[in-house]
Protein backbone atom coordinates (compact mmCIF):
# COMPACT_ATOMS: atom_id res chain seq x y z
CA UNK A 1 0.00 0.00 0.00
CA UNK A 2 2.78 2.44 1.00
CA UNK A 3 4.81 1.63 -2.10
CA UNK A 4 1.78 1.98 -4.35
CA UNK A 5 0.94 5.39 -2.90
CA UNK A 6 4.56 6.50 -3.12
CA UNK A 7 4.73 5.46 -6.76
CA UNK A 8 1.39 7.11 -7.52
CA UNK A 9 2.61 10.32 -5.90
CA UNK A 10 5.80 10.28 -7.96
CA UNK A 11 3.87 9.66 -11.19
CA UNK A 12 1.50 12.50 -10.40
CA UNK A 13 4.44 14.81 -9.74
CA UNK A 14 5.93 13.76 -13.08
CA UNK A 15 2.76 14.52 -15.04
CA UNK A 16 2.25 17.71 -13.07
CA UNK A 17 5.73 18.84 -14.16
CA UNK A 18 5.12 17.90 -17.79
CA UNK A 19 1.70 19.57 -17.79
CA UNK A 20 3.02 22.77 -16.24
CA UNK A 21 6.05 22.83 -18.54
CA UNK A 22 3.97 22.50 -21.70
CA UNK A 23 1.05 24.70 -20.68
CA UNK A 24 2.91 27.66 -19.18
CA UNK A 25 5.74 27.34 -21.70
CA UNK A 26 3.39 27.63 -24.66
CA UNK A 27 1.52 30.43 -22.88
CA UNK A 28 4.75 32.44 -22.56
CA UNK A 29 5.75 31.68 -26.15
CA UNK A 30 2.31 32.78 -27.34
CA UNK A 31 2.77 36.05 -25.48
CA UNK A 32 6.28 36.66 -26.81
CA UNK A 33 5.83 35.52 -30.39
CA UNK A 34 2.89 36.73 -32.40
CA UNK A 35 2.21 34.04 -34.95
CA UNK A 36 1.34 35.23 -38.42
CA UNK A 37 0.27 31.82 -39.70
CA UNK A 38 -3.05 30.70 -38.23
CA UNK A 39 -2.08 27.02 -38.43
CA UNK A 40 0.96 27.53 -36.18
CA UNK A 41 -1.15 29.59 -33.81
CA UNK A 42 -3.78 26.85 -33.71
CA UNK A 43 -1.13 24.17 -33.16
CA UNK A 44 0.53 26.04 -30.29
CA UNK A 45 -2.87 26.69 -28.68
CA UNK A 46 -3.70 23.00 -28.93
CA UNK A 47 -0.37 21.98 -27.37
CA UNK A 48 -0.90 24.57 -24.61
CA UNK A 49 -4.42 23.30 -23.97
CA UNK A 50 -3.19 19.70 -23.74
CA UNK A 51 -0.58 20.78 -21.20
CA UNK A 52 -3.20 22.73 -19.26
CA UNK A 53 -5.54 19.71 -19.11
CA UNK A 54 -2.62 17.51 -17.97
CA UNK A 55 -1.69 20.07 -15.34
CA UNK A 56 -5.20 20.62 -13.94
CA UNK A 57 -6.17 16.93 -13.91
CA UNK A 58 -2.94 15.89 -12.20
CA UNK A 59 -3.01 18.82 -9.78
CA UNK A 60 -6.49 17.77 -8.69
CA UNK A 61 -5.42 14.13 -8.34
CA UNK A 62 -2.25 15.16 -6.48
CA UNK A 63 -4.21 17.29 -3.99
CA UNK A 64 -6.75 14.48 -3.48
CA UNK A 65 -3.99 11.94 -2.88
CA UNK A 66 -2.11 14.29 -0.53
CA UNK A 67 -5.21 14.89 1.59
CA UNK A 68 -5.93 11.15 1.68
CA UNK A 69 -2.38 10.48 2.87
CA UNK A 70 -2.47 13.35 5.35
CA UNK A 71 -5.29 11.87 7.38
CA UNK A 72 -4.30 8.25 7.15
CA UNK A 73 -1.95 6.17 9.25
CA UNK A 74 0.39 6.05 6.25
CA UNK A 75 1.25 9.71 6.69
CA UNK A 76 4.30 9.02 8.86
CA UNK A 77 5.73 6.53 6.40
CA UNK A 78 5.05 8.49 3.24
CA UNK A 79 6.00 11.91 4.55
CA UNK A 80 9.05 10.74 6.44
CA UNK A 81 12.15 12.86 7.08
CA UNK A 82 13.75 12.00 3.74
CA UNK A 83 10.68 13.06 1.81
CA UNK A 84 10.47 16.34 3.78
CA UNK A 85 14.18 17.02 3.28
CA UNK A 86 13.83 16.50 -0.47
CA UNK A 87 10.79 18.76 -0.51
CA UNK A 88 12.72 21.56 1.23
CA UNK A 89 15.74 21.01 -1.03
CA UNK A 90 13.52 21.26 -4.14
CA UNK A 91 11.93 24.47 -2.85
CA UNK A 92 15.40 25.86 -2.12
CA UNK A 93 16.57 25.10 -5.66
CA UNK A 94 13.41 26.75 -7.02
CA UNK A 95 14.15 29.83 -4.93
CA UNK A 96 17.77 30.00 -6.12
CA UNK A 97 16.69 29.71 -9.77
CA UNK A 98 14.07 32.40 -9.17
CA UNK A 99 16.74 34.76 -7.78
CA UNK A 100 19.14 33.92 -10.62
CA UNK A 101 16.44 34.67 -13.20
CA UNK A 102 15.64 38.00 -11.55
CA UNK A 103 19.35 38.94 -11.51
CA UNK A 104 19.67 37.92 -15.17
CA UNK A 105 16.70 40.05 -16.15
CA UNK A 106 18.05 42.92 -14.09
CA UNK A 107 21.35 42.79 -16.00
CA UNK A 108 19.53 42.48 -19.34
CA UNK A 109 17.32 45.44 -18.47
CA UNK A 110 20.43 47.64 -18.30
CA UNK A 111 20.88 47.17 -22.05
CA UNK A 112 17.38 46.49 -23.34
CA UNK A 113 13.82 47.30 -22.49
CA UNK A 114 11.97 44.16 -21.43
CA UNK A 115 8.18 43.95 -20.97
CA UNK A 116 7.32 43.52 -17.28
CA UNK A 117 4.74 40.83 -18.05
CA UNK A 118 7.31 38.69 -19.85
CA UNK A 119 9.77 39.07 -16.97
CA UNK A 120 7.13 37.98 -14.42
CA UNK A 121 5.98 35.04 -16.54
CA UNK A 122 9.46 33.73 -17.28
CA UNK A 123 10.58 34.17 -13.66
CA UNK A 124 7.57 32.23 -12.35
CA UNK A 125 8.01 29.58 -15.04
CA UNK A 126 11.70 29.02 -14.27
CA UNK A 127 11.17 29.01 -10.49
CA UNK A 128 8.25 26.58 -10.47
CA UNK A 129 9.63 24.28 -13.16
CA UNK A 130 13.08 24.02 -11.56
CA UNK A 131 11.49 23.23 -8.20
CA UNK A 132 9.31 20.50 -9.76
CA UNK A 133 12.21 19.02 -11.74
CA UNK A 134 14.42 19.03 -8.63
CA UNK A 135 11.64 17.18 -6.78
CA UNK A 136 11.54 14.58 -9.54
CA UNK A 137 15.31 14.12 -9.50
CA UNK A 138 15.51 13.84 -5.71
CA UNK A 139 12.61 11.39 -5.48
CA UNK A 140 13.55 9.17 -8.40
CA UNK A 141 14.17 5.52 -7.69
Amino acid at each position, binding site marked *: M*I*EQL*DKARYNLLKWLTIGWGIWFGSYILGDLIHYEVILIDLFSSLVGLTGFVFFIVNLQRYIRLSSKVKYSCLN*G*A*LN*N*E*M*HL*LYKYKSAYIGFKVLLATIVLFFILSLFNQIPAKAVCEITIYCGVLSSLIAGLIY*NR*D
Partner: protein
Amino acid sequence: MENQELINQIKVQRAMKNITQEELASHIGVTRKTINTIETGKFVPSTILAIKLARFFDIKVEELFTLIEK
Protein backbone atom coordinates in the same frame (compact mmCIF):
# COMPACT_ATOMS: atom_id res chain seq x y z
CA MET B 1 33.44 16.72 7.91
CA GLU B 2 34.54 16.58 4.28
CA ASN B 3 37.25 14.00 4.91
CA GLN B 4 34.91 11.78 6.89
CA GLU B 5 32.46 9.25 5.55
CA LEU B 6 29.50 7.56 7.17
CA ILE B 7 29.21 3.93 6.24
CA ASN B 8 26.45 1.59 7.32
CA GLN B 9 25.85 -2.10 7.73
CA ILE B 10 22.17 -2.12 6.81
CA LYS B 11 22.62 -4.23 3.70
CA VAL B 12 24.70 -6.77 5.62
CA GLN B 13 22.24 -6.90 8.51
CA ARG B 14 19.37 -7.22 6.08
CA ALA B 15 21.06 -10.13 4.38
CA MET B 16 21.68 -11.77 7.75
CA LYS B 17 18.01 -11.44 8.64
CA ASN B 18 17.02 -12.36 5.11
CA ILE B 19 14.57 -9.50 4.63
CA THR B 20 13.95 -7.17 1.72
CA GLN B 21 14.17 -3.37 1.76
CA GLU B 22 10.39 -3.23 1.55
CA GLU B 23 9.93 -5.50 4.58
CA LEU B 24 12.43 -3.47 6.58
CA ALA B 25 10.71 -0.24 5.52
CA SER B 26 7.30 -1.44 6.68
CA HIS B 27 8.76 -2.51 10.05
CA ILE B 28 10.44 0.85 10.59
CA GLY B 29 7.55 2.88 9.18
CA VAL B 30 9.21 4.51 6.19
CA THR B 31 9.18 3.95 2.43
CA ARG B 32 11.42 1.49 0.58
CA LYS B 33 13.03 4.47 -1.13
CA THR B 34 14.15 5.83 2.25
CA ILE B 35 15.83 2.54 3.17
CA ASN B 36 17.46 2.43 -0.26
CA THR B 37 18.88 5.95 0.02
CA ILE B 38 20.21 5.25 3.53
CA GLU B 39 21.81 2.00 2.37
CA THR B 40 23.54 3.67 -0.55
CA GLY B 41 24.66 6.59 1.60
CA LYS B 42 22.69 9.21 -0.31
CA PHE B 43 20.70 10.16 2.75
CA VAL B 44 21.88 10.37 6.35
CA PRO B 45 19.04 9.44 8.71
CA SER B 46 18.09 11.31 11.86
CA THR B 47 19.05 9.95 15.28
CA ILE B 48 15.50 8.66 15.80
CA LEU B 49 15.52 6.69 12.56
CA ALA B 50 19.04 5.40 13.25
CA ILE B 51 17.95 4.15 16.68
CA LYS B 52 14.85 2.52 15.20
CA LEU B 53 17.01 0.70 12.67
CA ALA B 54 19.54 -0.39 15.28
CA ARG B 55 16.76 -1.64 17.56
CA PHE B 56 15.24 -3.61 14.74
CA PHE B 57 18.54 -5.37 14.04
CA ASP B 58 19.20 -5.65 17.77
CA ILE B 59 22.61 -4.01 17.59
CA LYS B 60 24.13 -0.69 18.72
CA VAL B 61 23.81 2.40 16.53
CA GLU B 62 27.61 2.62 16.34
CA GLU B 63 27.71 -0.89 14.93
CA LEU B 64 25.16 -0.02 12.28
CA PHE B 65 26.66 3.36 11.38
CA THR B 66 30.40 4.01 11.44
CA LEU B 67 32.21 7.25 10.78
CA ILE B 68 35.49 6.63 8.97
CA GLU B 69 38.33 8.90 7.87
CA LYS B 70 38.77 9.07 4.12
